[in-house]
């Protein structure tokens, strides 16, 4: 399902307007990173997509549905949201029960719930920790658990809010692999992230927000090279982009393997 955001404005109160006239079209299967400094409106935008916030003006459409008309719990059927802090949602006494919570709420059959749960846990590598208490897991694994909880909901659209904060390289790789998997399944994947290296490695499209407005929207290879533009949004380009710029290139974003490819082509 496509996401269509038209002229979206959101004001928290008379003084704070978090989003100003945002227009964004996210077709099905797109893989998009939203970047910008804290306070630019990234989280507000993401929460408009999953219905936790409703527009003050403008409209957010998901497929044929308008978010303003549905409760967040109903929108959860289409949009999964992995929050930054796993400790704000873990409540079950067993890992497996935590992951089952989402699909059960969405009304899936008992067989479906079991299948989805098993596959989600396997995707994050926690399949042999099913009986453990979530808080016996290290924080980094608790984050993977909260991701599994969202994956099990099998939503066509998935939003990741700062998935790599505080994670070591191994966990970042796992998360990257999950994103590749979701892409291969044709799902729409959106991330909010400060980790530019992560964005460059896994996301094809980048949207830059500054003070509630979209100041750039395009392919990662183009947007991430615009150092001055990114600086106005208090964002520094990814490491390899900085290297590319240092070597005089004008077009690059991606993984070290991509860099090698580009090096050989020059």
């Amino acid at each position, binding site marked *: 399902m496509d996401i269509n955001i038209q002229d979206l404005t959101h004001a928290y109160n008379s003084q704070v307007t978090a989003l100003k006239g945002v227009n964004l079209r996210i077709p099905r299967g797109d893989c998009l990173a939203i970047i910008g400094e804290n306070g630019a409106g990234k989280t507000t935008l993401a929460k408009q997509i999953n219905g936790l916030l409703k527009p003050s003006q403008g409209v957010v459409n998901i497929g044929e549905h308008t978010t303003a008309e549905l409760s967040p719990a109903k929108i959860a059927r289409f949009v*999964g*949201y992995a929050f930054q*802090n796993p400790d*704000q*949602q873990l409540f079950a006494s067993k890992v497996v029960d935590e992951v089952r*919570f989402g699909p059960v709420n969405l009304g899936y059959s008992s067989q479906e719930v079991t299948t989805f749960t098993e596959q989600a846990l396997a995707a994050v590598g926690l399949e042999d920790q099913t009986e453990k208490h979530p808080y016996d897991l290290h924080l980094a694994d608790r984050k993977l658990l909260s991701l599994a909880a969202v994956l099990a909901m099998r939503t066509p659209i998935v939003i990741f809010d700062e998935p790599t904060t505080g994670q070591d390289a191994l966990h970042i790789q796992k998360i990257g692999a999950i994103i590749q998997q979701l892409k291969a399944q044709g799902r729409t994947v959106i991330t909010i992230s400060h980790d530019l290296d992560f964005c460059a490695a896994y996301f094809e499209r980048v949207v830059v927000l500054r003070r509630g407005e979209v100041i750039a929207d395009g392919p990662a290879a183009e947007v991430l090279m615009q150092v001055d533009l990114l600086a106005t949004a208090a964002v520094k380009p990814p490491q390899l982009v900085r290297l590319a710029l240092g070597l005089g290139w004008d077009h690059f974003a991606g993984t070290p393997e991509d860099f090698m490819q580009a090096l050989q082509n020059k």
Partner: protein
Amino acid sequence: MAQLSLYRPGSSPLHKLNPLTKLAVMACCLGAAFGFPNPYWVVGFYLLFTLSLAAWGGMLKPFLVQNAKLILPFFLSLFIIQGFFYGGATVLFPLGPFSYTLEGVEVAFGFTVRILQAIAGMTLFIFSTRPDHLMLALQKHGFPHQAMYLVVTTMQIIPQFQNKALAILEAQQARGLETQGNLIVRLKALFPMVVPMILGSLIDIDERAIALESRAFSKPGPKTSLIEIPDSETQKILRWCLVAAGLLLVVWRAL
């Protein structure tokens, strides 16, 4: 509002008094509220003493607004209940089987005025005293600093709990948890809301304890303070007098 408090910043002479002195003023006001046998004396005290102090503190208008807000529910219920049900000889007007009596009105008046004076005394204190300054003053007089810490921190952190609760609510809603609906729906929603709150808070407490250790919180010995809470011999004597006056008034009425 970052803290849970009704304190109104200001630089009036009232604000500059030592918090314990203001506590003594409040004690005297409470004594006056319930002390004078005749409620008209309470009115006099309110108008002459309490209102003057509020004016001295540069807060007369908000003070009156706060008093009015708080006394209104008492005022209404007292005048209705006592008026109709106190019983008494002088009927002002009948209403069905009930009679609205003058004696009832007098009793209601008495209660109202005393409660008003009590509210006024507490308002004077709360509006002009920063909670952390009060705690510092108490600490200086020997109260354990851990207890003082507990009170001030609680007032600062409770508003933050609201933020946390909201974050948890959103996270669970995003997993399909319905929170609007009938009682059963709401009860079912309780567990996934409360557990993260408690467990999350325990983790926070752990980290805060480490932060406090890093600030030498558990080091025994006398503590100093950056802010000077002014005090003087005059104020010390004044405190004793105020508290004594409050007590005497209460005793007077009891006799």
